[in-house]
């Protein structure tokens, strides 16, 4: 139980770091080339995918869960 909780907390930290890194990258890209709309949009899509998968647990819609 405790190990599971720690693993869940650790995953949350990894996702946060990933999102922060992507935000930093998009900020840098916009600073260098503000008209690079496609790249900025792709980064936003990657961030959205991470949030949907790891924070919003979209897979719980079709998978059996314990709770």
């Amino acid at each position, binding site marked *: *139980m*405790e190990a*599971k*909780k720690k693993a*869940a*907390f650790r995953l*949350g*930290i990894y*996702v*946060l770091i990933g*999102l*922060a890194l992507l*935000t930093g990258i*998009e*900020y840098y*890209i*916009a600073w260098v080339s*503000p*008209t690079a*709309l496609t790249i*900025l*949009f792709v*980064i*936003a899509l990657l*961030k*959205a995918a991470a*949030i*949907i998968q*790891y*924070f*919003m*647990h*979209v897979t*719980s*819609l079709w998978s059996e*869960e314990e*709770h």
Partner: protein
Amino acid sequence: MAAITSSLAEYQHQLRNNRLGLWLFFVSEGFLFTALLVTRFYLWGNTRPDLDQLLGLTITVVLLISSFFMNRAESAIAHDDRSEFLRNLLITAALGLAFLGGVIGFEWTGHIRPSDGAFGAVLYGMTGMHALHVVSGVVFILIVWNKGRKGEFSAERHWGVESCAIWWHYVDLVWVFFYPAIYLMGTAIHL
């Protein structure tokens, strides 16, 4: 024991329906936010108003961190750790209020007014609609916190917490697209 098992099975069946209902609601909300994004690209094109970049980045990071704490709160109640759950909920609500403070207290008191043509209208329309959802999220969090404080929710039954968490992450998800659209994309034009 059989009655408890049956009741839990019913709860899990209801849970699946609840989740589907919430996600369908997100789809309908998605149309609203997509319409705002399309409006932004139609009216602003490859330009944007010259906004405070540090403020934009700061409130974005604040909202991302709030999502992290909301995730911790949900994990905590899923593992029956009530004190951790309540503490993380309050941190999330505080960060949500900090985000609102950044938008309303600083961005809305800047040099751009709602009456400043397409730039003002779209900026206030997008940030206003999003802020409204943040407000509803904070209220939702405080309601869940109050119920949790009174002993509601458990590792087995915490749909109230789960829906609140998913709602909060959805608010974050919308900002993931709004932030670059408002602050980063296009050539800055000083009004």
